[in-house]
């Protein structure tokens, strides 16, 4: 549905997108992931024909963005980073204007307006001025304008930015609900969002493609050996971390045990299995055999966050040093 081949976009002083290639098949939700300034917005603007690539080609639904931009534009719905709203218009009126621009008219247009208002939960602000809407509503009106003409491809630039947690969940559900009929690319720098919403993920950093794979594969790819989190406690409350560690290391298939935390009555361990060994069952049985209580045993799958940091090669974000701007007189 979307094919990007070797696309480069250079500005006067910087290269925003550097030889990026990827493709998206019909009906998929793809997460477009990268830190701020990675080139996500530029790539999306190229796909929507807002910008022209310096070199390379991109096509949407079989139409080239440079050769047949008109055909491409008919088939995409685009929500830019800031929703393109006219503050002096009312919601329904705005949707009518956008609908007309996208080629709808008459009863069909009115039907679609009702539909998107319903779908994006903006029915109650239909007659309100866009300039007076809250951030959450503005974002949803932006989404409504993107889907009004029922486009094949939806391109959403940070659709959940600035929303509160409840709105984020609603918006995610809304986007998930749109998948299937629509091919969706959404950009974000919030990783759990990709884990929850997308099937496929494209990671870019500093304008370069870092990885493109399914969310599950990507997690597995960087995982290696199985790593488990284990929390145990002794009945009498007396459990020595060192002996417990030695006992656990003796379990078949375990390669390394690390005590990560002492709690009041329990101990937390990180257990690394040997390659290709499934130790969860043995571990549980052993804990019971030692006479301890098993509080928790779960696989410590790497979050996409770790995957992301590993792939982009940047260190985990360190909190900025506290440097008070104003020094108080002592």
């Amino acid at each position, binding site marked *: 549905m979307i094919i990007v081949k070797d696309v480069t976009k250079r500005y006067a002083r910087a290269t925003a997108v550097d030889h990026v290639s990827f493709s998206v098949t019909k009906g998929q939700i793809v997460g477009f992931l990268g830190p701020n300034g990675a080139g996500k917005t530029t790539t999306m603007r190229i796909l929507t024909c*807002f910008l022209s690539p310096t070199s390379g080609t991109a096509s949407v639904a079989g139409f080239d963005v440079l050769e047949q931009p008109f055909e491409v*534009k008919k088939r995409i719905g*685009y929500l830019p980073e800031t929703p393109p709203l006219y503050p002096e*218009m009312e919601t329904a009126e705005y949707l009518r*204007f*956008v609908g007309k621009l996208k080629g709808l008219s008459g009863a069909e247009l009115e039907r679609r307006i009702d539909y998107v208002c319903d779908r994006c939960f903006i029915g109650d602000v239909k007659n309100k001025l866009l300039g007076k809407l809250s951030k959450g509503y503005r974002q949803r009106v932006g989404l409504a304008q993107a889907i009004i003409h029922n486009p094949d491809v939806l391109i959403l630039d940070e659709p959940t930015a600035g929303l509160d947690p409840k709105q984020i969940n609603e918006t995610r559900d809304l986007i998930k609900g749109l998948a299937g009929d629509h091919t969706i690319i959404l950009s974000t720098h919030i990783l759990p969002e990709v884990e929850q919403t997308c099937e496929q993920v494209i990671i870019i950093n500093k304008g370069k493609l870092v990885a493109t794979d399914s969310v599950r594969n990507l997690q597995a790819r960087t995982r290696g050996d199985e790593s488990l989190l284990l929390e145990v406690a002794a009945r009498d409350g007396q459990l020595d971390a060192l002996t417990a560690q030695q006992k656990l290391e003796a379990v078949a298939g375990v390669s390394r045990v690390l005590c990560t935390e002492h709690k009041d009555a329990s101990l937390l361990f990180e257990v690394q299995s040997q390659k290709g060994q499934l130790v969860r069952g043995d571990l549980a049985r052993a804990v019971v055999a030692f006479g301890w209580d098993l509080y928790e045993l779960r696989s410590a799958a790497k979050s996409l966050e770790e995957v992301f940091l590993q792939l982009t090669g940047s260190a985990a974000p360190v909190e900025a040093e506290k440097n008070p701007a104003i020094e108080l007189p002592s």
Partner: protein
Amino acid sequence: MRNIWTICAKELRSYFVSPIAYLLLTMFALIFGFFFWNALGYFVIEGMEMQMRGQTFPMNINEQIIRPLLSNASVVGLFFIPMITMRLFAEEKRSGTIELLATSPVRDIEVILGKWLAALILYACLLFFTALNFAFLFHYGKPDWKPLAVGYLGLLLQAGTLLALGTFISTLTKNQIIAGAATFGVCLLLWVLEWTSGYESATWAQVLSYLSVITHFESFAKGVIQAKDVVFYLTGIFLGLFFTARSMESLRWRS
């Protein structure tokens, strides 16, 4: 064609839901009303003096009131045009709504024509207030309507040229004030270029004078349609809109 009208209606609406249109209409009506009042005052006094001296020179409403007033209207218009055009593209660029227009299946030229047409219609609304004043002349006198109609055609053509230039300038910046100030400068310059012909008759002065938008309006004010003047204005409109289209296209490469 439909898209042009969609854009035009949207622009007109935003002129008329904001105070812009009403402010411009009020100011223009006041200023032009003042001109009209003065012109009429002179005419009446002159007429009385002539009667007292027993002279019977023919008095002509068209020549003595309508023609100078049309010239005034064209100059006052110069000051209002930047205020009409400055927001056309600058505002869309500032608020990001240009992304909506540029990614919708609408041709650039349709967007440009729609916006230019809306600006022209607003200008025509300003002219409507001059017509209200002239209506008194028709009620109390018998002026010829044909030169007046030609005058209005000239005003619209002249405004079309300047509005097209203003639209172009508005695509160059995100800042409405910059767009407005630059347009005002250009309008003013295109007016005063005509002054060179007053003291100099060399070729360069004639060329400069020819480029002045006011020079070409004079014959319209007299009620004469000259092909060279019509061609001048139509060329101006075409060039202005052409540059706007090029400028809009360059957004895809630059920003």
